[in-house]
């Protein structure tokens, strides 16, 4: 931080401490007094309440660097948006990659009004750009393939098919000596085949 900014931060802190120590309201509410450091933007440059009159609308449009006709505040339903503008829900993926943006990775110019959900629409996250193939085609292809494979595997489980097998046949009279039987005793004849 530059010495100028540090100085301003110190001024802000001193004001806060002064307000807390000898403010007219006692204790905690002194923190919310009207005393505010001059180090940040003025009250008029920050977002405010929902605009009621056309003059307020014009002032808000000017504040956000938008045309008065383009400026449309987010509908006021108590959710705390204030006078913030409603911008189109378009992801940064859709912006021209070849234009010389001031911030190329964000595809944004300096001073341009930021969408409320800007951090969702950056290029690492949600992408609203048009899909190369129509949605119903993609759905059909994916679910068709997956469904077909599931069906075939299920049928394969139900109706297994493999080469015919028989019990294993051992030589030397069914391994008579290896199995520990009496070497003198004659082993029984087992016929494995018919010619």
């Amino acid at each position: 931080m530059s010495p100028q900014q540090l100085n301003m931060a110190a001024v802000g802190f001193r004001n806060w401490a002064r307000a807390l120590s000898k403010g007219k309201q006692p204790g905690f509410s002194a923190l919310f007094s009207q005393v505010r450091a001059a180090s940040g933007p003025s009250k008029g440059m920050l977002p405010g309440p929902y605009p009621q009159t056309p003059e307020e609308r014009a002032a808000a449009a000017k504040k956000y660097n938008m045309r008065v006709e383009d400026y449309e505040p987010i509908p006021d339903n108590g959710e705390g948006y204030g006078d913030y503008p409603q911008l189109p829900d378009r992801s940064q993926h859709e912006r021209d990659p070849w234009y010389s943006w001031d911030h190329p990775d964000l595809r944004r110019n300096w001073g341009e009004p930021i969408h409320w959900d800007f951090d969702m629409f950056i290029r690492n996250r949600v992408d609203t750009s048009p899909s190369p193939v129509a949605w119903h085609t993609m759905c059909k292809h994916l679910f068709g393939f997956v469904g077909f494979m599931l069906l075939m595997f299920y049928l394969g489980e139900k109706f297994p098919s493999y080469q015919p097998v028989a019990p294993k046949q051992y030589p030397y009279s069914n391994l008579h000596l290896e199995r520990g039987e009496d070497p003198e005793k004659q082993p029984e004849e087992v016929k494995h085949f018919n010619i």
Partner: protein
Amino acid sequence: MADYREAPLATRPKTLDPAEYFNLSLNQRRAEEERAGLRAQLKRQYQMQLNNPHRKELIEDPALTRWVYARTNPYNHFRATKKTSLLGGLFGVVPLFVLYYVLKTDRDKKEEQIKAGTYDRKFKLAY
């Protein structure tokens, strides 16, 4: 591509958008010119600051400051309406009770099984 239907929540490609071909009225053009004017002003301000050889500090973006302020201070303009109360209750109050109930019943059942000796430890590593 006459039957192209865009994906839900996605947009139409610019080349398939009919407004591009039909909205060439004077008003539209004037609007575009005004927008280009605003853009050029902002570009100029940024470039002046960027290329200023005496600048030692970061270039502050007031739009960013406003965005951060708006996102971090929604309670200044918060009002308790039906919708906001419902959402607040649904996300803040109901999970407390539901989770307590679910976890308590599950663990009580397990405790009873252990006490009765019928608990089956499926993936035990130690004996």
